[in-house]
């Protein structure tokens, strides 16, 4: 193309664009389109409000009603020997923390190991396919069924009707494991294959590459997944009603005896009120507020981790 042609072409393009701009400026959306737009916008905003309002009300109610009994006694006393007003939820808070810790101690190693197998070793194999299917099914198991399974297991092992914090942890682990497997698997898949190859090419055995390269790279995401799993189970009530039972007293021993937890505490305070019903309601609300606070603290802790995984995603 000669320079003259180029220049001419340039002029043509410029004038053509000029026309287009004029046409665009003159055009306006039709009334019908504007009406549809307004309708759609309205519907979306309404959906947001419908979602946000109940959520806000719940939080507000928990804070308002829960703070009525948010005193020191609440955190220093159990319900042992308490009839009517007073008492506290120390036994339930301790139970929740103990059972949750035990659940995490069971579910995180098992779930993470399964995820490592699925991503690093079993990909494409039959065992991996079966495991993945099993995890999918486990995700949708009703929590009461997990409770019954743990109840049956402990009845068989330790005699009928055995209730303990550990049995509760086993039931909750059945719910938490699939959550950990799924989130960990997703995070491990985000670790670029390049890094594994680079590690292998340095003359390192595969399991060491996984331990020293893959897991540290994925660590923040793995932690976030574990916290997600904990948040999922910390509010579970039904399986704990079955297998951990309820008590008014302190129990620090996971292996023996009934153990109170916050969700079950809330339930029993509300469901079996004494004469002074206000006192029971207040304790139930205070329990709800404390439980929500524990979950929020966990989520914030997970959020505070360095966003390494987000970085990997961006670099890909």
């Amino acid at each position, binding site marked *: 193309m000669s320079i003259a042609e180029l220049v001419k072409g340039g002029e043509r393009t410029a004038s053509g664009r000029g026309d287009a701009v004029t046409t665009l400026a003159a055009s306006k959306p039709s009334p019908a389109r504007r009406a549809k737009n307004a309708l759609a916008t309205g519907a979306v905003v309404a959906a947001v409000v419908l979602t946000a309002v109940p959520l806000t009300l719940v939080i507000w109610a928990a804070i308002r009603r829960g703070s009525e009994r948010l005193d020191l006694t609440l955190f220093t006393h159990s319900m042992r020997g308490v009839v009517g007003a007073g008492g506290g939820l120390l036994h339930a808070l301790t139970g929740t923390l103990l059972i949750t810790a035990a659940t995490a101690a069971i579910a995180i190693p098992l779930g993470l190991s399964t995820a490592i197998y699925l991503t690093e070793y079993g*990909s*494409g194999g039959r065992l991996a396919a079966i495991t993945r299917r099993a995890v999918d099914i486990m995700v949708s198991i009703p929590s009461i069924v997990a409770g019954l399974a743990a109840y049956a297991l402990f009845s068989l092992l330790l005699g009928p009707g055995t209730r303990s914090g550990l049995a509760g942890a086993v039931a909750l682990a059945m719910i938490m494991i699939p959550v950990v497997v799924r989130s960990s698997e997703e995070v491990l898949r985000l670790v*670029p294959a*390049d*890094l594994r*190859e*680079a*590690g*292998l*090419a*340095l*003359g*390192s*055995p595969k399991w*060491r*590459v996984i331990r*020293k*390269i893959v897991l*540290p*790279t994925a*660590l923040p995401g793995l932690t976030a997944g574990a916290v997600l799993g904990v948040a999922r189970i910390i509010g579970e009530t039904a399986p704990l009603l079955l297998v951990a039972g309820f008590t008014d007293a302190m129990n620090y021993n996971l292996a023996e005896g009934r153990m109170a937890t916050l969700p079950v505490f809330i339930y029993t305070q509300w469901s079996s009120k004494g004469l002074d019903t206000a006192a029971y309601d207040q304790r139930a609300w205070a329990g709800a507020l404390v439980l929500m606070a524990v979950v929020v603290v966990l989520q914030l802790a997970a959020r505070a981790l360095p966003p*390494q995984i987000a*970085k*990997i995603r961006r*670099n890909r």
Partner: protein
Amino acid sequence: MTATVPNPTAAASDIAPGALAASTAPATGTAPTTGLVPATATVTAPLSFDAPGSMSISDVSCYYGSHLAVADVSLEIPGRAVTAFIGPSGCGKSTLLRAINRMHEVIPSARAEGTISLDGVDLYAKGVDPVAVRSKVGMVFQKPNPFPAMSIKDNVLAGLIIKGQRPRASAADELVERCLTRAHLWDEVKDRLRKPGDSLSGGQQQRLCIARAIAVQPDVVLMDEPCSALDPISTLAIEELMRDLARDYTVVVVTHNMAQANRISDITAFFSLASAGQPGRLIESGPTGDIFSAPKVIATRDYIDGRFG
């Protein structure tokens, strides 16, 4: 002795706007060859197939499942020199490169047959641990891949850290400085060794990967299109480094850039395939100067002249 990189002007002309303007002229046929200093000028020592780090590839075929990707390659790779693999996409040059340090078999269902020996030792013999092979034959990948969860310093030490053999502080510092200096990166990063490995530019990351590869003291460094993700300036730095590395290591580089192969390599091996889906084969290999000035096979000449396909 001439400079290790004999023709920075040729490299610069690749990016000069003038080169783009001139590309409309019917000079494409001759420009790539006449613009370059003869590659023989880069050969600083006589080639030796007995030098430490010499490799011998014989009758190697590589498969992906039942698909034959590379067929019957036999090739001698001189020690402490640069050997370039060139050829069209899909000709199996990267596959063969990965077979050299037994990285090919990492891919599920991939396998290689034949003999590849390093200093007379068959790397595919029974009982040879692929993990041990890879610590003797290192690799640098197409895309720079420093470990993001490690600092620059730990990236250099990564080979040892992964194996659980992190050296003591003073030995570690010494090793890091030596490898980074060898990779022409020390001056640029010595004040930020604790920064993450992926905080560097692409070219710096690739040199960090080279430092990481040589820190485990391999005899051979394989490079799979190490410059294809880099800008021309970074490419020049890596090319310079490859020439320099060849003083102590056997360097095998896969490249799509024929000018680069001509600039940096002592031996060039040209691979090609009859048609898509057919296995890649070694068409011709020899001293780079001969391959580029007087190829024996028409297919080689056509490819080098840009008349392929």
